[in-house]
């Protein structure tokens, strides 16, 4: 049930960020590619990482290997979106 549309992947990523980090969806809707996330957003701490990855896997129908996960990949909305699209739209 993997998604095939780049827009759907982006919408799913925003929904997961709002759900897992407990953020206002209106605020997440304003995130752009340069919005800093991991290490910059207080809600996005190490405790939130596992939940975010698992929820992305379930909703995008992908499998994320541990070695693919690092601070750079989660640094900004743009980097996370690039990763999610590359995993989903292959």
């Amino acid at each position, binding site marked *: *049930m993997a998604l095939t549309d780049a827009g759907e992947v982006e919408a799913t990523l925003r*929904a997961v960020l709002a*759900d*897992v*980090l*407990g953020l206002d969806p209106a605020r997440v809707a304003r995130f752009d590619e340069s919005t800093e996330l*991991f290490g910059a957003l207080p*809600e996005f*701490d*190490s*405790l*939130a*990482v*596992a*939940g*975010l*990855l*698992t*929820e992305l896997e*379930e*909703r995008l*129908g992908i499998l994320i290997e*541990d070695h693919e*996960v690092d*601070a750079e990949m*989660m640094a900004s909305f743009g980097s996370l979106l690039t990763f999610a699209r590359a995993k989903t739209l292959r």
Partner: protein
Amino acid sequence: MSVPAQSYAQYQAANGPEWLLRIGDPEAAPILFVPPLFEEMNRTRALLVATMRGLAADGHCCWLPDLSGTGESLTSLPEAKWDDWRHDVTNASKHVAVAHGQAPLIAAIRGGCLLDDAATGSGHWRFAPVPGASLARDLDRASLGGGAEWAGYHDASAVLRQALAAAVPAGVELLRTVRLSTDAGAADAKLEGPALWRRSEPGNSSEVAAALARDIAEWRQTCAAS
């Protein structure tokens, strides 16, 4: 709405007495909750208690046990075994059945659905059941991004971790399964709301709690009539 009666009782668990939280009139129809496991238990405690209060206000009596090595337990987590937890769920259900003179409905959430078949109940209700392997993978992953090993449960024994990873929800009679709409798994009903067990800051949702309480109450009626 009046504040429902709340008290604590002890039941005989695997390694000695453990606490049961009771919310509701002791004369009312009983429901035993089997809580999520590890970090998810902390993240969903407020949701569970809000659901229990909603059911209590609607004429039910809800019970929530501490399992060996969790909550207020005097057993340390390294000593807790998977079979202890199954034994605890069995004995908690017996305690409630004796207290009420009737078997409770068993309401299990997330990892609690891996243990709930050990309980004797009038029926089973599950919210967002999950294979133990998924929970173990989440805990394994907690150290990614610089977090604590096993989300702070690093002293859980290797055998407990292995038993968790091997556990799957068992088939039970009179079962109703509810999931969130974002969950692709099979369910009898889906509802809108946040996956609170994923949040690093424990949260609550009065909407989800109210929806769960309604669904549990209806299923208890169905089971009682069958």
